């Protein structure tokens, strides 16, 4: 029986593990956190149809229960050594694992919004990120601002930490546009009297049902879209925020007072993926995400034989894309193991 070690217990890791177990392999999943499920555990509902995250995570966790693969939580990979067709993996609790193949599924990290100093995240009281908003939705708490007031006007800022040379990230994080539209609708449902604005540079509604959701946001929920990048935010004496942008379509600078500012933060490759790149000796792209052998037909193949890639460690990805990418990773591993038999 062949043994496959998967690094990372998020959507990609679990889905790959599940598919490889189905194919009759012995799989060990290594997860650095105490529980599996990755970033999805911190999210509330998924675009474009508001599916509760639990529907996905419960199913993934159920797969883990049903299927026979080992999961090592609170564990990280220290080193990976290759010996011909075998890998020897040393973990943070000093276990020695022997594997025939490795799948890197280390995912991403959310952009630290404090790096956009001009937006005052963690400085101004009512600047939050899209991730904070999901937590809030999840907790079911009432959304209030200064002195228990219900926010009357809310603005979303697109592309925070994405498409931004100043953050060092040239790429598009792919999920934030539609996340903004989804969250704007959700907020409007919570606060029907609030005015909601999205400040965007481009709206990239590429996925199935994305464009429809955008239309619905305008049609049913009166979400207003302003094409302009925020240059700064500042806090006023009543803790509301003065924001400045150019309304590029009317060609004039625009300022606006809002009670709450939501920063749609992007994805970065993160420390876990960087560590995997080092321990597995596989290359990173300029963006920090892992290099694939070919972007069309070999997007699961790393620059090292026997080491495969699954999910958003290769590029920002939606949940759907991650699941598909993970399944194709399992297929590639299977093909490889057939060949090396």
């Amino acid at each position: 029986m062949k043994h496959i070690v998967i690094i990372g217990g998020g959507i990609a890791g679990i889905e790959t593990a599940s598919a490889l177990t189905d194919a009759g392999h012995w799989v060990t999943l290594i997860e650095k956190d105490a529980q599996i499920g990755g970033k999805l555990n911190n999210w509330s509902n998924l675009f474009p149809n508001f599916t509760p995250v639990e529907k996905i995570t419960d199913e993934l966790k159920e797969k883990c229960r049903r299927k026979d693969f080992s999961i090592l939580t609170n564990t990280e990979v220290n080193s990976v050594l290759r010996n011909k067709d075998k890998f020897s993996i040393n973990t943070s609790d000093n276990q020695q694992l022997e594997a025939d193949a490795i799948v890197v599924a280390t995912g991403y990290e959310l952009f630290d919004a404090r790096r956009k100093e001009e937006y005052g995240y963690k400085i101004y009281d009512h600047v939050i990120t899209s991730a904070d908003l999901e937590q809030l939705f999840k907790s079911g708490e009432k959304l209030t601002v200064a002195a228990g007031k219900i926010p009357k006007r809310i603005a979303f800022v697109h592309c925070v930490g994405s498409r931004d040379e100043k953050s060092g990230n040239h790429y598009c994080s792919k999920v934030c546009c539609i996340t903004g539209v989804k969250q704007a609708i959700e907020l409007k449902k919570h606060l029907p009297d609030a005015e909601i604005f999205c400040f965007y540079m481009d709206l990239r509604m590429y996925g199935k049902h994305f464009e429809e959701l955008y239309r619905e946001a305008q049609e049913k929920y009166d979400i207003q879209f302003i094409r302009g990048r925020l240059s700064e935010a500042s806090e006023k004496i009543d803790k509301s925020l003065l924001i400045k942008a150019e309304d590029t379509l009317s060609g004039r600078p625009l300022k606006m007072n809002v009670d709450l500012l939501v920063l749609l933060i992007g994805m970065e490759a993160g420390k876990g993926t960087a560590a995997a790149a080092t321990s597995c000796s596989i290359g990173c792209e300029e963006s920090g995400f892992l290099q694939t052998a070919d972007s069309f037909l070999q997007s699961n193949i790393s620059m090292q034989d026997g080491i495969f890639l699954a999910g958003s460690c290769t590029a920002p990805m939606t949940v759907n894309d991650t699941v598909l990418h993970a399944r194709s990773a399992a297929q590639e591993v299977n093909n490889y193991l057939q060949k090396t038999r």
Partner: protein
Amino acid sequence: MKDFGYTVIKQRTIDYDQFDGRLLNEVLQMEPSFKVCLSCGGCTATCSANDLVSFNVRRMNLLLRRGETVELESEIKKCMLCGKCMLVCPRGINIRNVIMLIKKSILKYNPVKS
């Protein structure tokens, strides 16, 4: 000429075939970072000048790319070269240098002035 009480109206269309790209090419060659402007307007939002006068840094890109050199020449005079726009630009464009390059070369290519 005879006056019929009406005239032939000048077309408003941007006639791209009439576009003189020399100034644009010169600026892009000297400051290639200007190629990547995505018209987000961050520069205009933070501009110290446009609060009080109708100056729009973002439009400099369009004016240059559409050959509107007459308007461009009068517009760039409003820039104070403070460079605040460069702090904001998500594409890291050296906007100050772009303005300087236009100032330097525009008279060469502006048929009205020269």
